[in-house]
């Protein structure tokens, strides 16, 4: 994997795209060219002086040729709320440490990412860290299906990218029933796992899931029941982002592991769910 860098990043755009959801585009050439699906960036905004820590963000899309990375973020607290006020005109000083972390499929040296049939399960903004993986899988000729859950239709902001840019079949569920099936996407995931790959009905080789921890735990259990390997992307409060501080640990069968560099992608059967 590429060496870590602390790269000054130019803000190109920062727009609301859904309920409490913003799309931020940054010029960050080194990270755009080196980041692997599942890895993340650790962002510092110098003006946010009263809150000093960086914020980890998964990268949604990249344009390696133009040196651009796109981040989809949800407003959840002080830091993300502060970000919504940034604009290219104000020219905020942003730095990204990256590319950080263990990518999807890392345990078997990429073999899993080469799996022939892959089911992606995304809950809410968890759809973002799966996009680069989906793109890689499609380019490699894998058969990819996806189920996606959100609170409401307007929160399904990545849906068109998956369907139109990548041509992936996506089934949706919304909590309020405004699009797709009413309820959580776990029901869709269960039926997909039972029915097999949409294109040929054969069992999946791999499930990759990102979203709220209860969703990942349920999907992990369902995948284990049908004997399909599963990976999840874990989120924790994080200070250093480079593996030094041990603030972001995840309980695993091998003990407490760092979400930043031992993850964020973990094999689901290794996670001790809380």
């Amino acid at each position, binding site marked *: 994997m*590429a060496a870590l*860098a602390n790269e000054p990043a130019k803000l190109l755009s920062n727009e609301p795209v859904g309920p409490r959801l913003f799309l931020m585009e940054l010029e960050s050439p080194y990270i755009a060219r080196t980041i692997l699906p599942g890895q993340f960036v650790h962002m510092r905004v110098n003006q946010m002086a009263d809150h000093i820590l960086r914020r980890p963000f998964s990268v949604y899309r990249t344009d390696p040729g133009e040196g651009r990375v796109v981040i989809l973020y949800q407003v959840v607290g002080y830091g993300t709320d502060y970000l919504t006020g940034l604009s290219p005109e104000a020219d905020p000083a942003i730095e990204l440490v990256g590319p950080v972390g263990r990518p999807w499929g890392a345990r078997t040296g990429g073999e899993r990412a080469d799996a022939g049939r892959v089911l992606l399960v995304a809950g809410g903004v968890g759809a973002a860290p799966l996009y680069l993986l989906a793109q890689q899988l499609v380019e490699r000729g894998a058969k990819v299906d996806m189920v996606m859950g959100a609170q409401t239709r307007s929160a399904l902001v990545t849906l068109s990218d998956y369907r139109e840019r990548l041509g992936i079949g996506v089934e949706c569920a919304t909590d309020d029933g405004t699009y797709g099936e009413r309820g959580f996407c776990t029901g869709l995931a269960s039926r997909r796992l039972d029915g097999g790959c949409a294109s040929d009905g054969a069992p999946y080789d791999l499930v990759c899931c990102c979203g709220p921890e209860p969703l990942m735990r349920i999907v992990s259990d369902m995948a284990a029941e049908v004997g399909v390997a599963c990976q999840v992307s874990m989120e924790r*409060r994080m200070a250093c982002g480079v593996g030094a*501080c041990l603030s972001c640990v995840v309980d695993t069968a091998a003990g407490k592991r760092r979400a930043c560099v031992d993850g964020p992608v973990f094999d689901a059967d290794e996670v001790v769910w809380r």
Partner: protein
Amino acid sequence: MMQAAERLVPRPTKVALAVDLGGLRMKNPVTVASGTFAAGREFHDFVDVASLGAVTTKGVSLNGWEGNASPRIAETPCGMLNSIGLQNPGVRHLLEHDIPWLESIGATTMVNVSGHSFQEYVEVIEALEQSQAVHAYEVNISCPNVDAGGMAMGCRTDSVERVVSMCREATARPLIVKLTPNVTDIAEIARAAESAGADGISLINTLLGMAIDPERRRPQLARVVGGLSGPAVKPIALRMVWEVARAVQVPVLGMGGIASGADAVEFMLAGATAVAVGTANFVDPQATVKVIDGIADYCERHGVSDVNELIGALEC
């Protein structure tokens, strides 16, 4: 393959930056606060770790500790709370994996030593004595996040004297004792450490604090309380360094919210011989080298040819 940003090294300067911290010869006055830098490797993409005055490792115990439950950190205005709980894989792992790496790059190394009992501190030091690449010990009797040992040991003069004297008997290498600020009289504790044989005093460790999520009516840390660090604690740390530097003859390693060369100079003026960069490493992984350069900048601007001239030079 795209190249990463260049690994930062201190810029050349004519200022003499070397200091002697109780027998630990440092090429410049800057080390790191234990627990913020692992054993250096994690930051080597960003800075030349060997260019630091010393690398202070994360606290190590005899057989390793699992640490506390998550969440382990909470952000506060101008600082952070942590309750990591000294998670570490044990001294054997440090000796086999981290010390050889530090030696291979030519780093000056100070190992932070922890224990749940007086005897455990001694056994950790005895294990480390076999390595010539360990140049000094920082005895941590100040961690607020462990139930046995740690801060409880560092709050009373009798226990401070006992653990320091036992460690003193175990080694002839420089022995720096790290104190907790969570005491009534820091100078009294420092004098106890000095009288028991400490070669230097390191301070401050974190201040005990807490943070609450009012929406959930829950503490933000799983352990409820944790240690506050970052710029928020700097005035307290400066005051304590000033008090201790006047109370003892041995040198002081100052830390607490240092993020720039100017911050470091303040600590040296207050009496510190060397300084440690802590939380700033999380904010800027190149902070250490920037602090070294900042000290040199200050000295050049003020006509200071040797950084030792700054130590205790506060005019008041």
